[in-house]
Structure formats: structure tokens, C-alpha cells
């Protein structure tokens, strides 16, 4: 059964069709939220919220965009609302909030190294402002185009390009600093610590 058929059946109140849609897209939405907020618990809660909101307004979905783009829009707004409501300064979230450390039980070396890299990337992303981080996650790690990012975030293409450029430069600076590597761009676009986590 195609996704359009599933959506139409779900719009007519078919729960099984919606369950299939949830199972197909929940991982994408969860990873997007994890990239934006970096807390597995919050990402799980907001994934749940996203799908419930999607169910409630499914009748208003006119199939004029892909289903996942529509879900991403709801997830993005949910993340924004969460940050505003909690008044979070996400840049300096405590490291222990990142529940991505290797588990206590013994694991193969490759798995431990993969977790280390995930930890490193997520804590580097943590130092970026929310908009820079969203642009980086959506463009580079989710492979979305500028137009798709603009559709998800409802922001101008120019702002997205700027965020992406700044985010990319800052991410490199952060990784260089963390790994003790010399940074040839030092002084060009320095990380401004005076505005942590500004939206």
C-alpha cells in the first residue's frame, strides 16, 4: 500500500493505517529532535507529541507536501515551543543530560568508538546556537535542500544560508579546539561566547 493510500485511510479514521505511518516515520522524527535538542528523553516525548498533533490535524493535511516534511514542520515547532516554554539555554545544557554514553556492560570496541564519536558530535553541536544547529542537522545530517529547510522552519533562504555557513565554520572551530588542532580560520569567524544559545 502506498503512503498516500495510508494517509487517506488514516484521514478516514483508520488507526492501523496511522500506526503504519508512525512506524515508518518515527525514527526520522526522533533523530531530528535528538539532533535539535540532544536529550533522548525529550526527543522521545516530543516525537510522541508530534504524532499526536499530526493525528489531530490529519484531516487538514492536503497532500501538497511530503508527509515527512509536514511531520518535520510539526516537530520543529514543537521543539521551538519546548525551548520557549522551558526557557532553556540549550547551549550550556549539562553534559549529563546527554544520555549517549557507552553503557556499563562490556561492548565491542567498534561500538564504544561509535558511541564516542556520537558523543563528540552531539557535544560539539551543543555549542552552536539553536538556528545554526537546526540548519546543520537538516542540511548536512538529514540531507535536506535549502527549499525543504525553508519549508520546515518557515525561514528565509538567506537566513538559512547564513546559519549554515556560520554553523559549519563554528563546528570546525569547535572540533579543532576540542582535538587540539591548529585552526587556520582563527579570527575570521570566531565563536561568540557572549550570546550563548540565542534563538
Amino acid at each position, binding site marked *: 500500500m502506498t503512503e498516500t493510500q495510508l494517509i487517506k485511510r488514516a484521514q478516514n479514521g483508520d*488507526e492501523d493505517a496511522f500506526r503504519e505511518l508512525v512506524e515508518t516515520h518515527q525514527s526520522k522524527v*526522533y533523530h531530528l529532535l535528538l539532533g535539535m535538542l540532544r536529550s533522548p528523553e525529550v526527543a522521545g516525548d516530543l516525537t*510522541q507529541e508530534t504524532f499526536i498533533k499530526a493525528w489531530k490535524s490529519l484531516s487538514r493535511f492536503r497532500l501538497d507536501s511530503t508527509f*515527512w516534511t509536514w511531520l518535520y514542520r510539526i516537530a520543529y515547532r514543537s521543539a521551538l515551543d519546548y525551548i520557549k516554554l522551558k526557557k532553556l539555554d540549550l547551549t550550556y545544557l549539562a553534559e549529563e543530560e546527554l544520555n549517549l554514553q557507552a553503557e556499563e556492560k562490556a561492548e565491542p570496541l567498534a561500538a564504544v568508538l561509535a558511541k564516542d564519536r556520537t*558523543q563528540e558530535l552531539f557535544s560539539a553541536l551543543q555549542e552552536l546556537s539553536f538556528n545554526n544547529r537546526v540548519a546543520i542537522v537538516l542540511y548536512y*545530517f*538529514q540531507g535536506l535542500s535549502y527549499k525543504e529547510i525553508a519549508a520546515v522552519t*518557515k525561514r528565509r533562504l538567506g537566513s538559512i544560508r547564513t546559519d549554515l555557513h556560520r554553523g559549519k565554520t563554528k563546528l570546525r572551530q569547535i572540533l579543532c579546539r576540542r*582535538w587540539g*588542532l591548529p585552526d587556520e580560520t582563527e579570527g575570521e569567524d570566531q565563536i561568540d561566547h557572549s550570546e550563548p544559545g540565542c534563538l
Partner: protein
Amino acid sequence: MRQREKIRSIILNRDAYERAMEELHKLQAPGVYSGLGKALGWNEQPVPPYLTEEIMKEIRQCREEIELDRRVMFSGGFLLLVLLTLIILTSIDALNTLSPVVRNQAITGFFWMVTSLVGSGWVLFLSLLRYQQKDHSRDSADHPLAQIIRYLRLKR
């Protein structure tokens, strides 16, 4: 460890970093975890196993609540209609005892009261409809009332 060194050398060289990031953009897609993405740390994380069940449970609850709301609305509407009919019948009965001049004044007053009530209700309905249409263009999935409450909370 070799992969780590490779990543370090990419980050060290600005051009290589730019090229690698563009390559990453081409390789990645929602739900796709390329080798380069994984090397940088974008690994697939386990989705909480209870998520689907929790979502479906909430949806079932929502449906029940909507069904209950519908019943309450229907019963309430029916009760209101009965009350209104009773009031009209009683008013007609009372009107018959009045003199023709007073009766005309009462009928005119009643007419304008009903008209203003219907008019206000219509304006409210249209405003909500317009808000909902505007809301749809933003693709927000909240109920308009929930959005107003959230807006007020955020303002505070």
C-alpha cells in the same frame, strides 16, 4: 582509529572539510546513515521501544475524548433547544396578556436580542474559522484555543 585520524586530517584542512561536508549533504537523507555520517558521529540511535504503543494509546484516548465531547455537545444543544422552545412558548403566552402597544415593543426587543446574539455568534465563528485557516498555513497542529492559551503563556 585510522578512521578517526582521517576525520582529523579532513577537519585540519579547510578545503577538505568543505568538500567532505558537501559530500555528506549528498549522501545523507532522512532515515539514511551513510559511512561518512557515521564516521562523524551521526549514528542511528535506538528509538524508545514503547513509543508506537504510547502514541497509539494517546490517540485512542483522544478519540474517546472527542466522542465524549461530541455527545456532551449534542446533549447540551438538545437541552438548549428544549429550553429555548419553552421560553418562546411561555413568552407567547405572556405576550397574549399584554396590550397591543406593549406587545409590539416586546416583540421588537425580542427580535433585536435574538439578532444580536446570532450576529455575535456568527462573528465569533468566522474569526475562529479565519484563525484556523491562518493556522493551517503555518502547519501548526494545535487546536486554536490551545494555541491562544499557549500564546498567552508565552507572552507572560
